[in-house]
Structure formats: structure tokens, C-alpha cells
């Protein structure tokens, strides 16, 4: 009997392939995700292992406030250079080398920053005499190490991709000030690609000066004498270390760095796997539907098997075996395609500015096992319902013409069951969205399960909605499309369950895309209303990408521009206060001229009265920490110092947030406590306000600051929203995979339908329908199906978006009408594309053969 099932599969290759496509795509995403993230992980791990391979121990600065945030450079405090001499004097130490490091951006001939959007630049200061030392993680590829303040070494990737050679000039900014340097050497860090990050190397003295670390070091690499183990070495070093430093063996340091970045890669992995999961979920709908149709078409075959003595269990088994084989083969193909998809995904990330280190392609056993198991199991689960229906075929169907599949036993409870599922889904969603008392985890699970049930519920109710929807959505075609248009509308309605199942797969993808669009629109509306309320300056100054802090010199340079009245900067840093990690910002007294804050307690004069110990916080922070004006707030800064602050004022920011962190102190205090202070935003008022002449004047003053960007209020909004747009586009691209899967669902249904209606199509052609009309008819049916998917998915998505938005306490619910109209048109286009192949097939039918077809 298994043999019969397998031979049957061979005999229906097209249909088997159609069933498989849905799983192939989903599994390719799973496999591609694993391959890409494993490759990135191995890239990081290889990078760090190479970096520390020659060091037995590594001494580095330790932030007193915990893991520094990558957005705030210089948080790990430097330590005095004298430590190096003392380390060298230790009995177990053979050699030790020190260096300094600070984010440094390379600037190209066009005076623009070279690294990609969101990518950064590493900068090092290295003793040229120690450059070729085996302890140096950087290896010289050509030229020599920089020896004076005019020289620089750059990474091999920048040198080759931007065509720089030894002796040429290149720009570099530390903080925000541009300098030009002669390229003395080309270096590389480790074996793996370091992604989109650039490297700039100065000699140690120049580095210390540029990085504002004169007489200080950021790291010391130590090698031990023969016979001294790394652990013994570490034990020797520990007693002489100052409080803000730590020492690890080289292997431990590499492992720590790998695991720090590993967490980041794991997030990417989970993120991508979520989309693979959605694609597989949609794929399971497509498979279930495709199998249902093929099983319905094989009713007589199953009945014949029953008359020849096959049991129900054998019929069930034959369908399940078929599904297992299809699932397994599809998974194997998907697994292979994943290798290609990994490259595509990486290209996608790079195009969005996320370029990560990579090793050679890593293809783990886990990838193979998970992909094959997952694909096979999903196919198997999706086949169970159609398989059960196949067992309900009565033997007498073998002798009846036009026998149809009996309705499933659950059909009786159809509507109550569908409505129940729908209601339960909505209830779980409401609980997850509104029950503020429950734990976040419980709420998220409740939302997740709720969304699944909601989709199932809508899919179960859909058959009852198909007739009215098709009647209305098919009306334009029926009216203007002539007979093919009318027939297409009728065809879409004649098997509502089938049309509903096909449209439901598309519904899921469209609903999720709509959720994303609704949330993004809400986020933007909220942000813009905040900027509208707060922004009273003429111009804003930020780094090019708008979220990485810049040095402070660009803002200072603008103060000298004639006509400028106010330049007020918001400094950014981190710290620990009241038992939590906090974001710290700092303002000067003039901030009230550029940012209009509402005060709960305090006034526009408060920022000017902060002094050495004053701090202001937002209303919510004060409430959460039970603070009132006069409350003491001790703030631990990364250098290990504690500032004893007092609350001087409480402000009430708009719902969309403010440019301020948890604690805001005076700029003067900030600059005394934080090394390398940097600005998150600066705001400018100028005589005459925003005019082309003023814009030009300001830009001219920023010539030496390539990463600084001057913006008007609306440009500032747009620039800040670029991050949202990038994320939005990334989500659209990733969700489009699910939509593609559902399109294959439409293709499958149409092809199988054409197959089923061969005789009917022959008849239509015989009575005078042209090929073109036949094609139009199929195309129109496809568009009606796609529109039903849109009509179901978009409202579900808007509802879900409103709820999810509410769940993440996010009041600005905005319906992006324009985007939704685009989605509807996209659905129409998708329907037309899905119909190409089936329509051609239908058009090609030979009239005579079609009429004789049995």
C-alpha cells in the first residue's frame, strides 16, 4: 500500500511539486537564517580568537556602570600608562604592549563618511616600535606603521574598495573634527571580514592626543615567560590592577567578546526565524488546501481502493506517507536553497546598513536536522485533515459519476466552531493587550496564541464570506469583463471553502504587513507630534545617521557663525542610579530657548540653576522612583565616581518622548565627570530663522565636520524617522516571503481548478470562447481571490495593529490609508502574477482533447 502511495506520487509530479513549493520556501528561510547567523557567529568568534591568539592575558578598562552601550563611545574608562611599566616588571611577564582605542570614522575624497549607515569605525593608537610585535592584534599588510601625527594606517577593505594606496591622503574624524592624514600602511584585523566597519590606526602618541587620553591606555596585551600558565599570569597581574581595570586570559577574553556578540547574533537569528515561522504557518495553509483539492479530485481512486479491500487506516496511511515524502523532499530542497538565501539575506542586511563579520559558510548538522524535521512535521500536520477526509470516502463513490468528497464530520459544528475560535482568539488578544496586571511573558504568549487563533478563526469563517465578497469584489470585472468576467466571479463563488482557504493564506501575510504599517504610522505620528511640541529652534545638528552621538566641536564651531543666537547641545552618556542602569543627558541654561518643555515642578529657569548637583527628570521617572524636588539621587558614572545629585525639577514630556534621558544634569557637571563628552543633538536659533542663506552659512561652518548634519525641523523629523523606515522596509521584505508562499497557494488552486474543469473549458472553447477570453477568465478569478484575501487581511491587520499598539502602551493609533490602498493594488497585481501560469495552461487546452477528457 505504501508502494501504491509512492507510485501515485510519481504519477502526479506536478501536483506534488505544487504542494511542496510552500514548504520549500519556508524551510529555505529556516536554513538560510541558520547558515547566515552561524556564519556571522563564526566570523565574530574567528575575529576575536585571532585577535587574542598571541596574548596570554589581556588587561582592559572596566566601566563602573556595567556593560557600555555601543552608541556612547568612550564609556570604558582608560587607565594610567604607568601600569604598563609595572606589568612588565612582574616576574612571569615576558612582554607586554599597550594601546588606546576610540571610535574613528574614515572620510572619503567626497568629504563623506566611508562606513555604511549605522556601521562604525574603529580607531587605535599603537606604539610604532611595537607594531610588528606578535602581541599586536592588527597585522600590517603593506607599508609601515604610522610614526608621527601626520600618518595613518587603514584597513585592507577600505583601501581596496575606495582605491586608496600608500602615500595618499585620507580624512578621519575622531569625535567630530576632521583631520587629513597620509596613508603609511594598510592593516587587517584577524582573518574574517569585519563587515562594514572601517579601521584607522595612529601612532600611540597621536592616538592618545586625538582620543583625549594623554598618558593613558585602554588595553594591555601580556605574554608570559615559558612555564608560566595564563592562569598563573593573571593571578600575578591581579594584585597590581587599579579598580577600573580587569584582566582575563586571552582565551577567556576571546570567549567573552564572542559571547557578547553571540547574544546579538542570537537576536538576529530569532528575529529571522520568526519570519520563517510565519512563512511556514502560511505554507501549512497552502499545503492543507492543495492536498484537500487533490484529494477531492481523487475521490474515485480512494473509493476504488476501498472496494478492493483497503481499510480506512490504509487510505489514511497512503495520504500521510505521501505528505511525509513530499515534506521530506521539499525540506531537503529548502535546506539547499537556504545556502543561497543566506547570501540574499546578507545582501539585504548590507543594503540596510547592517554589515557584520563573516567566516566561510557554516553549515551545521543542527541546520540540517531542524530544517528536515520541521518541514516534514509541518507538512504532516497540514495533511492530517485532508487525509482524514480521504478516509471518509465511501466505497460506493467508485461506481458513482461525479462523486464528491463527503463533508468533514466537524462541518456540522462549522459556524459555532469558527466563531468560537475567532472569539477565543480575540479574547486572548484583548487579555494580552489590556491586562496590565499580568506578566509581560503571559501577555506576549496570550497575544501570540491569540493571533494564531484569530487567523484560524477568520479562515474558518471565510467560506461564509466568500459569496458576498466575491459578488462585490468581482462586480467590476463582471460588469466590464464580459462573459469571462461574469464566469470568473461565478467560479470564485462555486467552491467557497476552496476560495476561502486560498484567500486565507494571503490574508495572513497581508494582515501582518498591515500591522507593521499601522504600528509604524503610529510611531511616526507620535514622534512628529512630540517634535512639533518641543522643537522651537531653527535648526538641529546631529550626526549623519542621527542616533550615534558626535563630538562637541561641531556645535562649538556653529557658535562663531555670524547671526547665530543660540547653540544648545544635549550631551549623552550612561550611568547607574537608584539601582538601575540609566541614560544620562546634559543641557546648558539656554536649552529652554530651543526646546519647549512643560514643567510639572520647576520652570524654564530650572535648567539654568542646575549647578554642580542639580538634576531634572521626567514625570514618569519621578513617579516610578517616588521622587520629589529635593530628593537625593546618587549617580555612579563609568569612571567609578559617584555624583551626589539633588532633584531640582520635574518636566512633563509629550507622549512621543523627549530628547532627554532618565537623568538630565548640567553640561558643565557632565563634562567634568565624563571623558570624551559627546552630543546626541544640538539645536540652533539664528537671526532670520530658516532661510537658504542661513542654511548655507551653517553648512559652510561644518566643512570640517563630515559626520555633522544640519537640519531644519522637517528634515530633522525625516532624518530621525529614517531608522523607522529602514526597519519598516526590512519587515516588509521579510514578510513578503509569506506573501509569496500564499501566492503559490493561488497558483496551486488555479492550476488544479483548470485541471478539474478541463472538460468545461473545452466546452467553453467549443462554443466560441477565445483563448484570450479563457485567460482573462482565469486571471480575473485569481484577482477576485487575491482581493478576498485583502478584504479579510487588511481589516484583521488594522484591528491587530490597534491592539498590539495599545499593548505596548502606544496611544497614537493611526490608519495609514495611503499605504493600505497601495496594499490593495499590490494584491491585485499579485493576483495577476499568480494567474500567469494557470491562465496560459488553460488557454493552451486542445478543444477536442479537453472535450474527451475523463
Amino acid at each position, binding site marked *: 500500500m505504501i508502494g501504491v502511495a509512492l507510485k501515485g506520487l510519481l504519477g502526479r509530479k506536478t501536483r506534488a511539486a505544487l504542494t511542496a513549493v510552500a514548504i520549500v520556501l519556508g524551510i529555505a528561510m529556516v536554513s538560510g537564517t541558520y547558515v547566515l547567523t552561524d556564519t556571522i557567529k563564526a566570523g565574530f568568534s574567528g575575529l576575536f580568537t585571532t585577535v587574542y591568539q598571541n596574548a596570554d592575558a589581556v588587561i582592559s578598562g572596566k566601566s563602573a556602570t556595567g556593560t557600555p552601550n555601543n552608541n556612547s563611545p568612550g564609556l570604558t574608562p582608560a587607565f594610567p600608562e604607568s601600569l604598563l611599566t609595572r606589568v612588565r616588571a612582574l616576574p612571569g611577564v615576558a612582554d607586554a604592549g599597550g594601546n588606546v582605542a576610540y571610535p574613528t570614522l574614515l572620510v572619503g575624497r567626497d568629504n563623506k563618511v566611508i562606513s555604511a549607515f549605522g556601521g562604525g569605525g574603529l580607531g587605535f593608537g599603537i606604539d610604532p616600535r611595537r607594531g610588528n610585535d606578535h602581541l599586536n592584534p592588527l597585522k600590517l599588510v603593506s607599508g609601515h606603521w604610522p610614526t608621527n601625527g601626520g600618518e595613518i594606517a587603514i584597513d585592507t577593505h577600505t583601501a581596496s574598495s575606495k582605491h586608496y594606496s600608500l602615500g595618499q591622503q585620507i580624512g578621519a574624524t575622531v569625535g567630530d573634527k576632521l583631520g587629513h592624514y597620509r596613508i603609511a600602511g594598510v592593516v587587517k584585523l584577524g582573518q574574517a571580514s569585519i563587515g562594514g566597519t572601517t579601521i584607522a590606526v595612529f601612532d600611540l602618541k597621536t592616538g592618545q592626543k586625538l582620543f583625549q587620553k594623554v598618558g593613558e591606555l585602554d588595553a594591555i596585551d601580556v605574554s608570559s615567560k615559558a612555564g608560566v600558565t595564563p592562569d598563573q599570569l593573571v593571578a600575578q597581574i591581579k594584585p597590581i590592577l587599579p579598580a577600573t581595570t580587569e584582566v582575563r586570559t586571552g582565551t577567556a577574553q576571546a570567549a567573552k567578546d564572542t559571547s557578547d556578540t553571540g547574544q546579538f547574533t542570537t537576536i538576529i537569528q530569532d528575529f529571522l526565524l520568526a519570519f520563517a515561522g510565519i512563512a511556514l504557518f502560511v505554507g501549512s495553509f497552502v499545503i492543507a488546501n492543495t492536498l484537500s483539492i487533490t484529494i477531492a479530485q481523487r475521490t474515485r481512486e480512494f473509493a476504488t481502493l*476501498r472496494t*478492493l479491500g483497503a481499510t480506512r487506516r490504509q487510505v489514511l496511511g497512503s495520504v500521510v506517507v505521501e505528505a511525509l515524502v513530499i515534506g521530506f523532499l521539499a525540506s531537503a530542497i529548502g535546506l539547499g536553497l537556504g545556502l543561497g538565501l543566506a547570501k540574499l539575506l546578507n545582501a539585504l542586511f548590507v543594503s540596510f546598513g547592517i554589515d557584520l563579520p563573516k567566516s566561510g559558510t557554516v553549515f551545521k548538522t543542527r541546520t540540517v536536522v531542524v530544517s528536515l524535521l520541521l518541514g516534514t512535521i509541518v507538512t504532516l500536520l497540514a495533511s492530517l485533515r485532508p487525509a482524514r477526509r480521504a478516509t471518509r470516502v465511501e*466505497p460506493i463513490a467508485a461506481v458513482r459519476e461525479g462523486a464528491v468528497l463527503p463533508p468533514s464530520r466537524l462541518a456540522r459544528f462549522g459556524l459555532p466552531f469558527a466563531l468560537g475560535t475567532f472569539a477565543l482568539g480575540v479574547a486572548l488578544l484583548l487579555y494580552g493587550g489590556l491586562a496590565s496586571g499580568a506578566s509581560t511573558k503571559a501577555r506576549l504568549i496570550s497575544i501570540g496564541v491569540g493571533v494564531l487563533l484569530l487567523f484560524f478563526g477568520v479562515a474558518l469563517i471565510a467560506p461564509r464570506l466568500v459569496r458576498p465578497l466575491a459578488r462585490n469584489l468581482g462586480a467590476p470585472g463582471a460588469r466590464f469583463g464580459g462573459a469571462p468576467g461574469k464566469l470568473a466571479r461565478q467560479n470564485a463563488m462555486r467552491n467557497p471553502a476552496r476560495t476561502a482557504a486560498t484567500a486565507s493564506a494571503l490574508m495572513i501575510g497581508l494582515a501582518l504587513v498591515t500591522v507593521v504599517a499601522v504600528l509604524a504610522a503610529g510611531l511616526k505620528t507620535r514622534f512628529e507630534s512630540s517634535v512639533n511640541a518641543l522643537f522651537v529652534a531653527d535648526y538641529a545638528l546631529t550626526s549623519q545617521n542621527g542616533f550615534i552621538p558626535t563630538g562637541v566641536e561641531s556645535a562649538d564651531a556653529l557658535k562663531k557663525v555670524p547671526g547665530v543666537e543660540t547653540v544648545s547641545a544635549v550631551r549623552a552618556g550612561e550611568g547607574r542610579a537608584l539601582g538601575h542602569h540609566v541614560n544620562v543627558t546634559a543641557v546648558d541654561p539656554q536649552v529652554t530657548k530651543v526646546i519647549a518643555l512643560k514643567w510639572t515642578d520647576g520652570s524654564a529657569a530650572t535648567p539654568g540653576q542646575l549647578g554642580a548637583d542639580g538634576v531634572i527628570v521626567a514625570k514618569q521617572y519621578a513617579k516610578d522612583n517616588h521622587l520629589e524636588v529635593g530628593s537625593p539621587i546618587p549617580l555612579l558614572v563609568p569612571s567609578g565616581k559617584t555624583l551626589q545629585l539633588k532633584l531640582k525639577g520635574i518636566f512633563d514630556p509629550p507622549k512621543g518622548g523627549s530628547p532627554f534621558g532618565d537623568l538630565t544634569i548640567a553640561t558643565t557637571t557632565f563634562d567634568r565627570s565624563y571623558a570624551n563628552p559627546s552630543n546626541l543633538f544640538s539645536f540652533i536659533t539664528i537671526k532670520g530663522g530658516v532661510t537658504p542663506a542661513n542654511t548655507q552659512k551653517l553648512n559652510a561652518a561644518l566643512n570640517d565636520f563630515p559626520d555633522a548634519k544640519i537640519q531644519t525641523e522637517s528634515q530633522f523629523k525625516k532624518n530621525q524617522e529614517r531608522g523607522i523606515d529602514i526597519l519598516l522596509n526590512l519587515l516588509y521584505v521579510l514578510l513578503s516571503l509569506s506573501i509569496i508562499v500564499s501566492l503559490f497557494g493561488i497558483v496551486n488552486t488555479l492550476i488544479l481548478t483548470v485541471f478539474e474543469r478541463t472538460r468545461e473549458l473545452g466546452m467553453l472553447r467549443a462554443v466560441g470562447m477565445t483563448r484570450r477570453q479563457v485567460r482573462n477568465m482565469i486571471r480575473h478569478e485569481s484577482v477576485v481571490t487575491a482581493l478576498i484575501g485583502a478584504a479579510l487581511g487588511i481589516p484583521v491587520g488594522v484591528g491587530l495593529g490597534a491592539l498590539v499598539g495599545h499593548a505596548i502602551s502606544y496611544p497614537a493609533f493611526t490608519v495609514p490609508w495611503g499605504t493600505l490602498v497601495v496594499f490593495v493594488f499590490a494584491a491585485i497585481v499579485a493576483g495577476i502574477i499568480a494567474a500567469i501560469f494557470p491562465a496560459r495552461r488553460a488557454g493552451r487546452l486542445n478543444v477536442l482533447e479537453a472535450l474527451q477528457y475523463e
Partner: protein
Amino acid sequence: MAVVEEGAPAPAQQGTVVRANDITRTYGEGETAVQALRGVSLDVESGQLVAVMGPSGSGKSTLMHILAGLDKPTSGTVEIAGTEITTLNDNGLTRLRREHIGFVFQFFNLLPMLTAEENVVLPLSIAGEKADDTWLNELLRQTGLGDRRTHRPSELSGGQQQRVALARALVTRPTILFADEPTGNLDSKTGGEILELLRNSVDTYGQTTVMVTHEARAAVIADRILFIADGLIERELSGASANEVLDVMSSLGS
């Protein structure tokens, strides 16, 4: 061989393989109810070929479906090989089909992806049994399929396909073979060949057969011909000629 359920009625007499007792079959309910069979009783003796004839809508197909356990009577009993089948559950009926029943259909009902030989041995494969090579070769020779073993149904003519179907029905040596309009989808020449094969299997192997047909030329090969009209057996002929059959048929108003 025969499955006799505990507490079942006494086995049919030796030689009687099918016994129907006063069966009725009503489709639908109330005003729209249609009575397809209105009390039919019959015995089929071992080694007999019985033809069931009647105009369309007479109930002849319903009778065959009920005799073969494909449909259940509204009232009355059916015994096959001594087993009362109208009360059997699905598994019982499946076992009955495996052990006692062979089918030949009007539209052949071959599995398109299997070769002729694979189609023939399908009932055995389903039951998890091996074909007896001598018997299989004999069957394929008898049905003239010796050189068509590896052909698929799409490569065979209608007559050849029906011969595969016939071999498939005979391969298990069923107690009773049901043929449903076996020549209904064939031209008269190939139809004649199938009828000849059917008659041969009765004569050579003693294959008990019930055939439903509306063609006089098919009915004349039967040992007994039952004429059904309006859900009742109206006439019965033995060893009748085509003319006699046609006379009866026209008297029944077809």
C-alpha cells in the same frame, strides 16, 4: 474462509453464496421519498452467472450496491458466504471485500500510475499478500495481457483496460464477482470479448458472478436473467435468447 459472526443467522445452504431477503431501499424522507427497491429476495447459487436487467431507474444498480455491501438496505437482510452483511461495520465490510468480493466497473477504475500487472495484483498488495505466480500467469494469459504487463492504463485500449480490471477482480478468487455494466463503456466488439471472458471464468473456474446490465447481448450469456422494474423483480428467465430478452424488456416498458 468465511467469517461467521457470533449470533449471526444460520449459514446459507451449501451452494448458495448470496442470499437477499425482502430488501427495500428508500432514498430521502417524507414527500420526496423515492422507493428504489420495494421488497426483493433472491438467491445466487455457487458457479452461476446471474444477470440483472432493467430500464434505467428500475433499481437494478441499487440492488447490486446493496448485494455488494456498498449500500445498506432500508430493511431486509443480505448474506454473503453465510455472513449477514447489512449489520457489519466498516472494518467487517472491508474484510468481507478482501475475502469474498471482486468488482468490475463500467469505467474500469484502474489506478493510472500503476502498470497493468500492478493493477491486477493490487487487491493482494492491499491485503498484504503475495500473488500466486501460477495463478497470476494463468489469469494474464487468459485475459490476453501477457505482453501488456508493464503498460500503464493510459497506454491501453478500453477493452484492454477492462480486461485488466477483470483480472484484478479474479486474482483473489472471490466468492462472488460483481460486474457493474462491464460493457457500458466499450464498443460492441471489445464488449463481446469481455463478455466471453466473463462467461469463461464461470465455466472454467466456477466463478459465481452477478452482472448488472441494460444490454440484451450481455444478458444472454447469463444462466439466469432477473428483470427488475419499479424496484421489484418482475420476471426471471434461464438460458434465454436475445430476442426473448428484448421481448421481456419491451414488455417492461423500456
